[in-house]
């Protein structure tokens, strides 16, 4: 079953673009990464799914139910962590969690205590006095206490220290194993690659690609750095597959998507001092998607 499904979902704020013809499918039980730079429309997409804002056109379904008409039904089974945590400042943590829990027909007391222990969260403090990191912990708790079927996380790790991040990821994996679907939005791919099997990449309001993390890795893109004996600035390598070369002094670096033999052949007649071939991080692959799309408006030429 598809937990999230959107058909040409669009949202404009007046004339300014939020999301454009978004088509997304998230399967039950998966951890889906939703990646894009700031302002790409990640939060807009999430808010539309949650019924905080209404689509300009298109349709969206969560658990097979319409996101506009059946919003209340849908939200019974969703846990949501916003990117910026804002709560009622006068409440203390326990009060907020109880308030949150009372919206669901589930007894959450034991779960609150258990999770507060895990994250070393003091329930008696006022929301006003909490640091951003501690607010984030409260947000984790309130999104999980009612055991939702779908977790929607909007940049969940910002403000969490590495130890807490690790605990949080463990918890997510654990929940996922028990069947919870996770929709994980982030602007850093490296964070998502630890968790997700598939990622959707959003840019300027549009989905540019939905890929398996593994496929993305296997794109054979190589990061190449060559040091020549002479200045690299006017160096012209006759070789297809060189992407965004950058020359600095005697050094030339680029992403390479072509055949390795071609590259070696092209280098035979050059005076090479040093050669470094690396597997790029997902981050770099990802950035590439953007650069290439920016320049040509087409799919990137990586084989």
């Amino acid at each position, binding site marked *: 079953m598809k937990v999230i499904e959107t058909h040409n979902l669009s949202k404009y*704020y007046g004339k300014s673009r939020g999301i454009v013809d978004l088509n997304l499918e998230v399967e039950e039980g998966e951890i889906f990464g939703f990646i894009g730079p700031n302002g790409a429309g990640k939060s807009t997409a999430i*808010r539309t799914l*949650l*019924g*905080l*804002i*209404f689509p300009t056109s298109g349709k969206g379904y969560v658990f097979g139910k319409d996101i506009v008409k059946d*919003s*209340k*039904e849908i*939200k*019974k089974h*969703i846990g*949501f962590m*916003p990117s*910026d945590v*804002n*709560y*009622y*400042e*006068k409440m203390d943590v326990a009060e907020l969690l109880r*308030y*949150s829990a*009372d*919206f*669901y027909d589930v007894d959450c007391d034991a779960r609150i205590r258990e999770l507060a222990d895990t994250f070393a969260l003091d329930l008696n403090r006022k929301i006003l006095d909490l640091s951003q990191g501690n607010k984030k912990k409260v947000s984790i708790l*309130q999104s999980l206490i009612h055991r939702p079927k779908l977790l929607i996380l909007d940049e969940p790790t910002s403000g969490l220290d590495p130890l807490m991040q690790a605990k949080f990821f463990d918890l997510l994996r654990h929940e996922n194993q028990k069947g919870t679907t996770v929709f994980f939005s982030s602007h850093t791919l490296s964070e998502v690659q630890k968790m997700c099997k598939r990622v959707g990449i959003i840019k300027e309001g549009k989905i540019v690609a939905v890929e398996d993390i593994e496929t993305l890795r296997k794109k054979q893109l190589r990061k190449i750095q060559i040091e020549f004996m002479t200045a690299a600035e006017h160096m012209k390598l006759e070789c297809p597959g060189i992407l965004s070369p950058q020359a600095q002094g005697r050094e030339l670096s680029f992403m390479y998507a072509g055949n390795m033999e071609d590259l070696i052949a092209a280098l035979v007649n050059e005076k090479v001092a040093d050669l470094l071939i690396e597997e790029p991080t997902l981050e770099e692959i990802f950035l590439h998607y953007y650069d290439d799309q920016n320049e040509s408006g087409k799919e990137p030429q990586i084989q």
Partner: protein
Amino acid sequence: MISRNIYRWELKRNRSSFFVWCLSIGTLIVVGMAFFPVMIQENIMKQMAAFFETGIMKSLMAAFGATLESLTNVLGFYCTRNSQFIQILGSFFSIMLASKILAQEEREKSAEFLLSKPVTRIEVVSSKLAAYFTYLLMLNGVILVIGFISLELFKGESQYRLSSFLAHSAYSFLLMLTFGAIGLFLSLLIKRGRPTANISIGIIMGAYFFDALSKVTPAADKLGYISPFKFVDSSVMRPDYGLDWWRVLYFVGATLVLIGAAFWIYKKKDILV
């Protein structure tokens, strides 16, 4: 239709401000009424009768809705004072609370939390309105009780009809309710729930001014009808004083229309946090 959870929290978060308003208005009623026996005893009103008849004073008295006759009667005195501050202060309380209940969530961005919970927009508005209504009723209950006690305490020889007192109190309540509906409606027209306290004060003072102007200047009589104050009947000394159906209809009608519009707007509103 109503989420008890939201209702309870809304009551709780506004509790202390409610008590402050009650205490202030209650104290003002008692202190104000304590002047009545003093004025009667000293015959101040009678001594000043000639002064009140001069041109400017006559207009001023009319603007405040006061007559010599009404000021020498305990209920007349109470209601003249009533229209001076109970109605104005009560309307402030009402408009500020009503314009806050939804807008504050947007301003403080807690709306994102609230609306990601399984509640409909309609439930959010109705639960919060229920809390507002509870407080407005309670405030008017307090005003009614303290007003009644002060009347009894300070009336001396002066007599009044209880039904006139109750009818006038009902007008005050309806007036406050109408301002609350105006506040709620306006707060929803404003993006991201920016504070509307200044606008609220402006609306009430403006409405009060138009009403006063229409009482002084016969030419401006019609103009007064844009002000809810105009629809409060303050002639409590009339023997047949009571609730007029058309006045009640105005208050109830305006309130229902504005609240209906508020539901409609909030149901479709994009919550931008």
